């Protein structure tokens, strides 16, 4: 794993963006997340790793209250973004989700044009006063999503007609079009080929400048490549959380070591 340049990665920001304390998640009778406390830094890529079913995606979905859409899901504990409790009664999840964008496992562009895919979020949040404003936002988002050069000549073509990797970058561009502060990514590369994965990873590294990025991944190599902080989940518990370099070279918990050396998971 010496090609991963772990030592070059260090956390540039010390401000906590998201602070979760004693979070419990239940699916009906199943206790899916057990007492997880974690602090996610601003302008940092944080990776959640762990075997399937360990709760990393569930925890990620707590951060923008996507679990609200699941009837039987119950969340307890305290999750704060910039000090505000996002499960407070006064918080509207719709506003929260504009601030905390999300990219999903499978690229899911809307069955609309590329332009409308990006413009949808700004439109419903009223971020653009007129068409010209909207054009600017679309171009900026597509540039940040590192896909502008590939699609600038066919903004009216359907988003579903792009290749898998392009679709996923379109989805990332769509997520950042609403000017979020946090970007959640749920295994964004699991449906992509290695070349598209490399492009998306490069993009994630660039996004770190402006956003706090949380990425769930199955691939430990990916976690090592893109993240500065890593959290290892196992059976609903947060086993270990720390600098990516430390987790991969010198894990303190024997379970983490077993996982990253391939003995469990």
């Amino acid at each position, binding site marked *: 794993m010496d090609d991963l340049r772990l030592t070059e990665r260090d956390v540039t920001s010390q401000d906590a963006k998201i602070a979760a304390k004693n979070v419990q998640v239940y699916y009906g009778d199943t206790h899916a997340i057990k007492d997880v406390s974690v602090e996610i830094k601003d302008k940092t890529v944080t990776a959640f790793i762990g075997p399937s079913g360990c709760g990393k995606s569930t925890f990620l979905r707590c951060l923008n209250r996507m679990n609200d859409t699941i009837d039987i899901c119950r969340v307890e504990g305290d999750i704060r973004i910039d000090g505000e409790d996002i499960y407070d009664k006064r918080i509207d999840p719709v506003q929260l989700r504009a601030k905390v964008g999300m990219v999903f496992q499978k690229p899911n562009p809307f069955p609309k044009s590329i332009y409308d895919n990006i413009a949808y979020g700004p439109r419903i949040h009223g971020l653009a006063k007129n068409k010209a404003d909207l054009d600017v936002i679309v171009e900026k988002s597509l540039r940040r999503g590192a896909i502008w050069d590939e699609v600038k000549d066919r903004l009216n073509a359907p988003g579903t*007609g792009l290749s898998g990797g392009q679709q996923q970058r379109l989805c990332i561009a769509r997520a950042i079009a609403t000017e979020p502060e946090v970007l959640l990514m749920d295994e964004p590369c699991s449906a992509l080929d290695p070349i598209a994965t490399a492009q998306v990873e490069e993009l994630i590294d660039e996004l770190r400048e402006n956003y706090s990025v949380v990425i769930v991944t199955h691939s430990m190599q990916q976690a090592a490549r893109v993240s500065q902080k890593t959290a290892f989940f196992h059976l609903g518990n947060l086993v270990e959380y720390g600098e990516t370099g430390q987790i991969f070279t010198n894990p303190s918990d024997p379970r983490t070591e077993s996982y990253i050396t391939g003995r469990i998971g």
Partner: protein
Amino acid sequence: MTDASMDAAGAPDAPKKSSLMKTDEHTKKRNRSETWFRAYGLAAIATGLFFLIVLAVSIVSNGLPAFTHTVVDVEINMTQDQYDDAESQLLKTSAYEKVFIAAMGAQLAAGGLELEVDKKVLQRIAGKTGSILREFYKENPDKIGTPVSFTLPAASRVDQYLNGALKREDVQDSRFLERADLDIVDQLHEAGIIKSAFNWTFIQGTDSGVDNPGGAGIGASVIGSFFMMLVVLFLSLPIGVAASIYLEEFAPQNRFTDLIEVNISNLAAVPSIVFGILGLAVFIQFMHLPQSAPLVGGLVLTLMTLPTIIISTRASLKAVPPSIRDAALGVGASKMQSVFHHVLPLAMPGILTGTIIGLAQALGETAPLLLIGMVGFVARGYPDGFVNGFIEPNSAMPAQIYTWAARADVSFYDKAWGGIIILLVFLLTMNTIAIILRRRFERRW
């Protein structure tokens, strides 16, 4: 070959490998059963097609005569005296009939047809000429005193004779037709005085009395069906779609919603006559809405169509991939925005198809109409005005067909078959629209 390779491998006591060139017993059995299954499938499809063809052929061959009728061309010059005389008599239409017979006789003589034609014979050959003439002159009094050429329908038995439904040897002498009349009919037919023409009365007309099959038309009941379908469309589509969106996207999953779901499925299976009796009890007896009105028919059919629309709409909403909902919620759309901006457009083709199929089902429904009085001889013709179309007594296409089929005069039988063709044309049109709409909406990725 197998043995040789085994020997080469040096494993003499290994189990004998079978050759792929030879099909073993087990595979043969599987292949046989597959062949049989394919044969069954083909036989089933062939049977279905056979019945479909028999149905189509019998409908078309029985129904086409309804679209043509035998007419008599005659020129009549009604004088004011004749008119006043006819109007002063007790049996007015028969006075008009005499005018017709006189004109007809004159025409035959002028045409050089040396026929010994009895007046009675002409009367039997001609249909309900008297009432048609009277109606014409009442509406157009200015035409009195000038020659007018009429195309009047011949008697329905003459009609049947000329289109081959009635054989000469089957004719029983009666006051309607005598066998000897047919010679004259043949001669008049050859001379071109009696001829076959497209029956616009059947398309445009209203129902007629039991003694006048020639004058019966389906037009008024097409209008009745149209107003009924308007009611069904404008009630069941919004109610059905709103109910399904709420149940599918917003309602919590609990015992109460489960109960509602089960009951909707049950309602879809309730026989339509039950809805008819419900309509009679609620809409007519309790709410005192007018009897035999398309409004009530539409309300009853709405109740019947709603479950179909709800079930098909929910199925098409369910078929929209959840990733689209996630994507919309993920960029901060509200639940309603995600449904209306993304889910509903994708479900649209399915919703439209379900709705049109539900409407087509309602269009062909007869049983509930029996109970709310939209069947039988509805004496009224066309409604006067749009609003009245909903509340004036009328019939509907399937009910009209039922009425005709139940009448004693066999001539109405043709009309029933013809009505079925018209009904099927409407149904096929609606299904075509459903297919076109589905294609159109699906193309928008």
